[in-house]
Every structure is written in C-alpha cells, then in structure tokens.
C-alpha cells in the first residue's frame, strides 16, 4: 500500500527547496517532484523526527536533505509514537491534570522530607559544629550586643544550667550557655546546631525571679539541638531546592506556584512538629530534674502577657520601638502549649 504526503523538500547543504510529495510504500521512501523521483531511500537510512502532536512530519535523509510535511496531521501509517498518542488524548490530559498535583504533593510532603531525613543521618557531627560556629559568628556580629545583666543573675542561671546538664548526663563540652542583649531578637532564646544556647537579656529580665521557667526554656532549646532540628531544616530546604532544579526545573511558572505552596505548608507543619517535640522534651526532663512541667506554662504565660502589654502600648502611643515578642511569633498556638504543659504527666 502506498501512502502519499504533500510537503517541501530541502536539498542538502543549501536553502533551495521544492514543493514535492513523499510516497511511502513499505520501507521505501520517494520524494517526487512532478512525477520525477528526486530522492529515494529506505527507512533504515533516514531519520523520522518530531512525532509531537501539531508538529509536521520531518524526514531527514542520509545526505542531509530534508522533507517537511505541509500539514501537521500527516503521519506515516501507522506510526504514531506512544508519547504522541498520550499527548493527543483528552482522557490522558484529564488523568494527568489530576495526577500531577497529587504527585507533587507526594513529593513535597513525603519523598523530599524522607530524603532530607536520610541525609541528615549521614552527616558527621563535625558538619553541625562548623555550621553552628559559622552561623554564630554572623549572628553575633549582626544582631547581638554585650549583655548588661548583673553578674549574680548570670551566675545563678549558669549554675542551674550546669546542674541540669550534669543530672541529665548531657555533654558539658558541647552545650554552652551565652548571654546577649539584642534589640533585634527581643525577648528570645535560640540554640545552634553546635550546642551553643543563646538567651537574651530581655527574656531573662522577664523571668528573673522564676528560675524554673528559665530552665524550661533552656531545656526546650537543648531539645532542638538533640533532635538536630536546624540541620533537618537546612537539609530539607536544600532537598527542596535540588528537587526544584532537577525534577521541576523545566516547568517554569508551574512548579514555582505549586512547589512553593506545598513547601511552605510542609515547612509550617514541620516547624510546629519540631516545637511540640521540643516542648515534650522539656516537660519530660523537667520532671526528671524534679520540677513541674507547669514551669514551662509559667514561662509562656509571662511571655504572652508581655506581648499583650507591648502591643497595647504600641497601639496607644504609636511608638515605633515595638518589641513584639519574637519568641512567641515564631512559636504558634501558645495557649495550646500552655495547656499541654499543665496537663503533662
């Protein structure tokens, strides 16, 4: 059976062209110009390019001559590649439209986090230490000032800290406590992956006469280090970036929107999970130290009160030096955490 397709033939190595017809019978291809055969070839000596819906058939001959079909509908029977069949079916399009968001969701919430978790386990401790050292250097230079606390308060906190480390059998060389004044962080405390725990003057002043509450917060920070939370966050954001480049790199606007939403939601969930994990750790170890988890609730309540007061004040006086308590804003659902601490057995 012979098939005839209209198109243009381009001679090799020149822009010269003719309007021709291509006849295909079996595996013999002929380019015909007004009943005269210009080129004849067998299928194994030519390449059929571009089998994409809406793209005209292109045949490149061994010598570089090329035939391009006039209509994008013509195909050499019955040759429609598998990909082209999928791409031109409406059913597949609908199925894919449903599946794509599902798969992206699966990637963002399961595959990427799993990969990140696995890679964190593979990282040696020295990486966490050097990362902590380097970021501490930057944070200190940029946001921290020398403490203005009085020596006795500092000493009592350090004493308590050392006692807690000893009783909980934590590495004293790894975990160190540091006092700084910080306008940027306000009343806050944070831990770096190398075991450095920083607590600000502003926070200590609030909790000055409540050593157990201070201890509760310090334990919460230690938990972040013990569970490698910041390493896991870094690993996760890296895994995300890499996945974005590797898997979704070629999808332009699409991936940005979808992956962005997915990653943001996941990261929120993850950080909430990390916080409650750290809270639980604090509760458990407060009990181990012979204290009550209610100390944690107390710390939270004081912070919440303080926040209410400062936001009230900044509303009234329109003052720009609003010391919104950052500690709370990065840790949502404070009331829930307080209730949990109070009911912890």
């Amino acid at each position, binding site marked *: 059976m012979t098939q005839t397709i209209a198109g*243009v033939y*381009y001679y*090799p*190595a*020149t*822009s*010269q*062209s003719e309007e021709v017809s291509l006849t295909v019978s079996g595996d013999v291809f002929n380019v015909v110009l007004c009943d005269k055969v210009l080129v004849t070839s067998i299928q194994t000596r030519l*390449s059929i*390019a*571009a089998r*994409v*819906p*809406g*793209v*005209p058939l*292109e045949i*490149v*001959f061994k*010598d*570089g001559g090329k035939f*391009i079909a006039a209509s*994008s509908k013509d195909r050499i029977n019955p040759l429609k590649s598998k*990909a082209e069949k*999928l*791409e*031109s*079916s*409406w059913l597949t*399009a609908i199925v*894919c*439209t449903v*599946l*794509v968001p599902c*798969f*992206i969701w699966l*990637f963002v919430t399961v595959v990427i986090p799993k990969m990140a978790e696995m890679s964190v386990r593979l990282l040696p401790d020295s*990486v966490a230490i*050097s*990362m902590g050292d*380097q970021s501490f250097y930057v944070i200190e230079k940029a946001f921290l000032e020398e403490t203005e606390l009085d020596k006795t308060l500092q000493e009592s906190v350090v004493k308590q800290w050392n006692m807690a480390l000893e009783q909980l059998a934590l590495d004293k060389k790894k975990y160190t406590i540091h006092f700084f004044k910080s306008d940027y962080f306000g009343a806050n405390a944070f831990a770096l992956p190398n075991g450095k725990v920083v607590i600000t003057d502003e926070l200590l002043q609030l909790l000055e006469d409540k050593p157990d509450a201070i201890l509760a917060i310090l334990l919460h920070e230690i938990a972040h280090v013990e569970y490698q939370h910041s390493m896991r966050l870094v690993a996760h954001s*890296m895994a995300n*970036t*890499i996945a974005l*480049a*590797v*898997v*979704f*790199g*070629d*999808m*332009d*606007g*699409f991936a*940005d*929107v*979808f992956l962005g*939403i997915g990653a943001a939601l996941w990261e929120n969930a993850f950080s909430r999970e990390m916080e409650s994990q750290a809270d639980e750790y604090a509760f458990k170890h407060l009990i181990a130290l012979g204290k009550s988890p209610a100390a944690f609730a107390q710390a939270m309540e004081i912070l919440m009160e303080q926040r209410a007061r400062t936001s009230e004040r900044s509303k009234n006086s*329109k003052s*720009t030096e609003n010391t919104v308590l950052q500690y709370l804003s990065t840790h949502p659902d404070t009331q829930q955490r307080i209730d949990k601490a109070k009911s912890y057995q």
Partner: protein
Amino acid sequence: MDTDKALDSQDHSNAAQGYISNNIEFSGKASTFFGIWIVNVLLSIITFGIYSAWATVRTNNYFYSNTKLDGHVFSYLAKPLQILRGRILAIIFFVIYALVTNFNPVLGIILSLLLLIAMPWIIVQSLRFNNQMISYRNVRFDFHGTYGGAFVHFVLLPILGAITLYLAMPWVLKKIKHFVLSNTSYGETKLTTNLSTGQFYKTFLIAFLILAAFVGVIFALAFAATSNVGLQFFSALPPSTLTLVGVAYLATFAFMRAVVIVQIRNHVLANTELEGLAKFKSSFTIPSYAFLEVTNMLALICSLGFAFPWVAIRSARFFAQRTQVEINTKAANAIDTKSRQDSSVGSETAEAFDLGMSVV
C-alpha cells in the same frame, strides 16, 4: 534625525533591492500544547526529572515547527540525550555547590570563583548549542563567540557597570547585546548590528523616571495625609490601603519593565540585519506588552500554574505577530552551506550538549 522619513525611504530602497516584507506566523494552539505539556510534566515527575530532557525537546519542537516565515517552518534539531547530558553535569555541580556553601562557606567562595571563571565558557557553549539546534530552510543558525569575548562581556563589563554605580550599565547591556548578536549567524551569514548607546540610556532613564515618579507620588500622598515624612507612615496604614499601594507598585514595575523590554527590542531588531538576506522589525507597543505580562502572571497565579500552556502559546503568538522580517527572496533561495557540511544527520554536534544557560 527624522526616523520616520528615514524608514520610509529605506522601505522603498528595500523593495528595489528585492526585499519582501513578511510577518512571522505562529500556529500553535493552547489546547494541543496543554496535552503535550501535562503529559510531559507527569512523566518528568515520575522519572525524577530524567524525562525532562525529552519534555524540553518536544516542547521546542512544538514551538519551532509551528513558527512559519515566508512559507517555511523552523525546526528544532536537538536530541534529548544531548540535553540530558548537560543537565546531569549541571545538577552534579549544583549539588556539590549547595552542599559546600551550606556546610563550608570558605570552600564555597573558592567554588564561586571557579564558577565565575567557567561561566563565560558555559555561556558560549549554551549559545552555540541553542543556535545550532535551530534550522530554517534546512540551514542552521550558529554562534561564533569566543571564551575571551564572553569573559569580557559577561564578567568584566558587568563588574565595571556595578562599580560605576550602574551609570555604565546601559552601555554594558548594549555591549552584551552587540556581542551576542554580531556573533550569531544564519548559515554563514553573520548578523550585523549597529546599536545606539544613546537609545539604551534614554530607555533606562525613562524607566528610572517612572519609578521616581511613583515613589514621589506615594510620598506626596503620605505627606498630604499625615504631614510627616518617612517610612513610619506605612506602618500606620490599614491593610487595605497598604494592599492598594502594593498593587500600584506592581503595576508601576510591570509598566517599567515593559518600557525597557519594548524599547530595547524594537531598537535592536530595527538595527540588526543578515546582510543581503534579511532585515528585521519589531512593532511592540508598551501598553500591549505590559497587558500581556500582567495578564499572564494573573492567569498563572489564579490557575495554580495550569494556565502555563495558554500563557506560553499566547506569548509566542504575540511575539510572532509583532515581528516582521524583510527577506531578500532571491538570496534566501540560494544559501549555500556546502563548505560546512551542514547535515542534520551528521554527528558533528554529537559532542555538543546544552548547559541550560539562557542569556539575552
């Protein structure tokens, strides 16, 4: 100089020399492309990105083959494996780079310097690949820029632009455009380009004035409302007003971007030609381009990205409809590339691979 008059007389002389004006036609359809795209996205995801090389080739096939000039379509010739090879290399580097910069910033700086040295090579390689993979009338495009030239234009000049507080930047951008275009050829005919530095400065000055006017208006309004100057004003605004300011800013920014892109493109195309073969003209207008960009962005956001095929197709149509090419038909019919052995089946580009760097 009276440009209209100059163009007019040019038109007449063009006709005399055998030039015929053609519009670029684009026949892609959003519905067809949606089918191609969504299948490719799914396959790319479930193959962990490997299929994306095939996806790129199929997408480019669709767009080039649906672009027609003077009765002939363009062809995209790259093979998926060439793209995959470059992509694997890029990803290996990217992973190393991400690990190093996160965990050892000092080593990261050294790696960045190495990247800076490699950058011109990567750019040249990409431009060469991307040009060689496009053919029109069975004749390929090509890029002839050298490492040295790319180093000067993509590393040294931008540094110069930055240290002059961006005062030299319009000139630098002109030099970069000139470098890329004058090293691009169709078959053996190189593009010749004659860009005006003044035009670049004028364009960026207008863009700057638009931004300045926006900032001025906002602060004037702020002053009128509260009679105090400074950023505190914004913290006191209700969210609805703040949103309004945000939208106004985005609109201004879109308009500014449109001014730059439209002016530069129109200028560049009007002053570039394939000698003896073709002259170009771009008739973009600022409002229509700004409208295109803004509606594209809104469509992408509102559809969670699913409007991408529609956006891509209508953008391609917009570009095609506003680009005219005057072709010297006689010359175009007889381009000879025998000396270059321009065979599409040949393996002369087997070593070429795409490094996915897009410039210009």
